[in-house]
């Protein structure tokens, strides 16, 4: 069993995703980082399913479905923003400033 290395890889991928979200300002890259985090979670689900039964696999399918929907909606929003502002740099998108 490769449970330890699998969870370790998952943690590394997740941390990379978090770091990307925190540090990058391009909306598309940010989006990809979120996908990275989701898939890191998927990896840990699959790995842990070896121990705890099939519910982990089921959860992976849920996550993939939600991620697909999220990607569709998110990309649509980014395209909308780009049409409006001619940029996807998050530094310039601050309409909700108090």
């Amino acid at each position, binding site marked *: 069993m490769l449970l330890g290395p699998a969870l370790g890889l998952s943690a590394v991928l997740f941390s990379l995703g978090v770091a990307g979200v*925190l540090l990058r300002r391009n909306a598309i890259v940010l989006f990809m980082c979120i996908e990275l985090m989701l898939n890191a979670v998927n990896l840990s689900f699959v790995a842990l399913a070896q121990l705890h039964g099939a519910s982990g696999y089921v959860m992976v399918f849920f996550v993939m479905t939600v991620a697909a929907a999220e990607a569709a909606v998110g990309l649509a929003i980014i395209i909308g923003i780009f049409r409006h502002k001619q940029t996807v740099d*998050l530094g310039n998108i*601050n*309409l*909700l*400033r*108090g």
Partner: protein
Amino acid sequence: MMASMIWLAVALPLLGFLINGGLALRRPQAKDAVSVVGVGVLVASFVVSAAVFLELRAHPPHQPIVVNLWRWLPVGSLQIDMGFQVDQLSAVMLLVVTGVGSLIHLFSVGYMKADPGYARYFAYLNLFVVFMLVLVLGSSFPVMFIGWEGVGLCSYLLIGFWFSEKANADAGKKAFIVNRIGDFGFLVAMFLLWYSLGTLTFTGMVTKAPALLPAGGAAVTAITLFLFLGCTGKSAQIPLYTWLPDAMAGPTPVSALIHAATMVTAGVYLVIRTNVLFALAPFSSTIVAGIGALTALFAATIGLKQYDIKRVLAYSTVSQLGYMFLGVGTGAYASGLFHLATHAFFKALLFLGAGSVIHSMHHAYHATHAHADAQDMRNMGGLKQYMPITFWLMLIATLAIAGIPPFSGFFSKDEILAAAFARGETAPIFLLFYAMGVLAALLTAFYMARLMAMTFLGSNRTGERERAHLHDAPWVMTGPLVVLGILSAVGGVLNLPPFLGGGAALEHWIEPVTAPAAAFFRLQMPHGNTELFLVGAAVLVGLVGLIAGWKATLRRPIPTAADAPADAGFARVLYRKYYIDEIYDAVIVRPLVWLSRFVLWKGVDQGVVDGAAVNGTAKLSRGLGWLGSRLQTGQVGVYVVLFLVGALWILHSVVR
């Protein structure tokens, strides 16, 4: 039992008020219906009152008959019934109010005939009678207070009846506000009574007061002084009399009913009703008598130099009310009540007579489109020729008020003066009050003779063209005058003194009411030569005053109001009423307005309430909101960092 039906006497005018009020709102032109209802309910109420009076006379009760209608305020140990008290005193007041009231209502039918507010006028007048009857019938202080406030309201409404002119509306407000000061006294007295006696009914007061209140003590003195403050407001005594002369802005029958015959005597009634308290507080009684004597003299001097016929009568009323307070303050409660009744007759007659004169003058000026003052006596003169009936009737009233025998005022005024003189034996200050009363009587005769001479005698100054329009009023107006004239002439038989073969009927009649006071203090009236001397002096003073007033007025021709030069010297001070209104304005009104505007309004209201409390709270919330809004940068990155920190913190505290 007729006495248990006494509520009818109140309910009938109330019904009249409701019907007339409805008509005023829906059918203001239905004047015939208004007249029938307005006068009819009063006459019916008079019939009920007379029936009650006759029953009381047939079976005089020693205890007041209290008719409780319903429980009004049951609050813990304070149980106040909506109750009417029928006894000898309220029966007399009932007859005066409904009797004189009926006559004045009838007079109003003619006087107000052309007024567009006819229905409204009668609605108010009926409502006034309702409250006046509640005032004199109430079996406890709170019930009496309903009437006390109610008559004040109706007085306000009727003084400002022609409210489209600002002066009239102002006079109404003045009456209301000045009365509020007196009402404050009444209320405080009521609280103190409840505190010290635990009861507010008149019957309870009579039984408990002698046991619980030490005679001459601070408690009873405070209660009676506060009660008297209420009286000075309602009955126009110094220092709160200033509203009454201004109240003449209302229609003349209103002046006759409210501001001469009934409402303004409520204070005298209150003192008689609470005679047990005043007997326990000799100091307060002396104050009452002193204020009465001072007011009688003071107002009489102002009356000497007024030119408005109604204003002369108004100051005369203030002065005569002073006599009544002199009487009741001296302890001669029956004499005070007697003067109240005779004054109601002759002063109502004088006012209604003046009303007839004004009515006629007004018509004359209206017919020729002149704009002279229809109430200024300088524009009258020689009216005897044109209005003989009014002249002779008013002459009766003049002789009555001047104290000429055998007219009614002679008996009542003489009794009051004699009582003050008699009291002087034990309390010398009453001799001073007596002297002031005699001097006031001289001045009364003087200004009444002046009024009659300026109005009815000499040559006419109204104007060539107007003269043809001057005539006596129609019978609906002169009829009540005739009845009042008879009452003014023979009213003295109510309380004919023993030395003229009378039995002092009124005095014996109200003995059960004044018995509690008599238990402490019995006034020894003068007898024999002293009495005859006092009577002689009073008559002499009256005659001298009348002749002097008559001679002085007709000594030289009187210029009309438009041509008259301004008065100079002391006459000017009298004409301007000792500048009392101006002094009150400078000493009380202006400082109060200044305090209200610059301290209470701009300082407290705008500064503290608006500035600190209302706007301060708003500013505080806005500041906190501004601080919170600093977190909302709009930068997704910042949100993510915060989110991450939060998530880690939660994770940390859950997992450990």
